[in-house]
C-alpha cells in the first residue's frame, strides 16, 4: 500500500464507512460520521499506521483528507 492508500484506509476504518467514500475533499463537520469521537479514533489510527506523534495543532488543523496529507508531509510522509 502506498501512503495515500494507507491514509484512506485509516479514514475509512475510523469513520466506519466504505473506502470508496473517502476522497481528498472529505471534510470534518460536513460529513456527519466524522465527529469529535471519530476524530480521536482517526488520530490514533493515523499515528499507529505512520508511526508518528501528532501534536494538538495538527489535530485541530486536520479538517479534511487533503489537510491530513499536508500535515503528514511535515512528518516526512510523502504522497
Amino acid at each position, binding site marked *: 500500500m502506498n501512503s495515500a492508500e494507507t491514509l484512506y484506509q485509516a479514514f475509512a476504518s475510523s469513520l466506519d464507512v466504505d473506502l470508496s467514500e473517502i476522497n481528498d475533499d472529505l471534510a470534518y463537520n460536513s460529513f456527519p460520521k466524522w465527529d469529535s*469521537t471519530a476524530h480521536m479514533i482517526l488520530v490514533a489510527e493515523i499515528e499507529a499506521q505512520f508511526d508518528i*506523534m501528532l501534536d*494538538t495543532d495538527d489535530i485541530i488543523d486536520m479538517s479534511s483528507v487533503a489537510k491530513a496529507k499536508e500535515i503528514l508531509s511535515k512528518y516526512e510522509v510523502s504522497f
Partner: protein
Amino acid sequence: MTDTLIEEYESHFNALLAQPVYHLEQSQKEQLLLPLLNLLDRYHRQQCPAYKNIVDLQDGPSEKVESLPYLAVRLFKQLALSSIRKESVFRVLQSSGTTSQIRSQVILDSATSARQSKVLVKILQETIGKARLPMLIIDSPGVLKDKANFNARAAGIQGIAFFGRDHTYALDENMNIDWPNVEAFCQKYQGQPVLIFGFTFMVWQYFIEALLNDNKDIELEQAILLHSGGWKNLESKKVDNEEFKRVVEELTGLRNVFNFYGMAEQVGSVFVECEAGHLHAPLFSDVIVRDPFNLEALEVGKEGILQVLSVLPTSYPGHSILTEDLGKLAGVDNCSCGRKGKYFSVSGRLPKTEVRGCSDTHKVESS
C-alpha cells in the same frame, strides 16, 4: 447584509487569532475585542428576534466593552436562543443539570463548534504545552455514549481529549473507581508527564476520597491536573481551591493543578488558573464584575456578579452573558505570573432568592 457582517466578523476574528493569548495589555485587548463584540451584537439583533427584543433599549455600537448589552444566563434555560436556520444546527449542547432541573440549551453550527475547539486548544496550550499526553479522565466512559442528549460534561471531556492520547477512564459505569485501570495507567507512565482531567467535585469525590478511603498510594508527580465545574458541591465538605491542592499534593505528589472557569453557554473561551492561583481572561474573552444591586461595573477588589464576554458564538447570542456567579477582580495587567489583562476569582453562586424569575436583564436591574 448578513453575509457581509459574518465576513467582517471572520476577518476581525482571524486577525485576533494571530495575537498572543495572554500578553496583550487590557487597553490593547479591548481595542481588538470591541469591534468584534459590536459586530456580534449587530449580527444577533438581525438573526435572533428574541435577542433583539431583549437588548433593544440600547441602540447602536457601544464605545466601551462595559456598555455592551448582556443577557441573563437563565434566558438560555427559558428560550432556545438561535441565530441560525434549523437546517444549519450541528449540535444542541445541554448544560449538565447537576444543580438545576431545567437545562440550558446552546445551539451550535459547525462554524461556531470548530471555533470553540480551536480556541480551547490555543488557550490550554499555554498551560499544558503542544504535545499530547497520556490522559486519565476522572469520569465514566458512559458519559459520552448518549449522543442524542449531548451534555456539557461530555463536551468538556471531548474538548480536553484533544490534549490526550491513550485516553483512560478512571471510573466505571456506576461511578466507582476502577483501580486496576488506574493503577495500570500510573504504572505504564510512571515518571512521565500525563494529563488528568475531571470535573472538580468528581475529582474530589470519586478520586481523592477513594484514594483516602481505600488507602491507596499512587505517584503522579509529573502529572498535570486540570479541573473545572465549580465548588458548589464541595462547599458542605469545606473544600476550597487551597485545600483541594494541598490534599492532592499530599496524596499523589501532584503540584501542577489548574482549575478553570467556563460556562456551557461559552464553551471554548475558558478562564484558566495561573501558577499564582488566579483565573485569567485570555485573548478571546473578558470578565466584568457588576454590583448586584445597580449592576454598575465594579473596580478591582469588590465582589459582585460576573459578566463574561466571548467573541466566539455566531450561532447563538451568547457573546455577553450575566452569570449567576459571584467573584471579584484581583487585578489588571499585573499578575505575578506575567500574564496581562484581567485576573479574578470566583467566590460562589448568587443566592437563589436574589435571582427572581427574571425574563430579561432589565428586570434583574430593577429587583
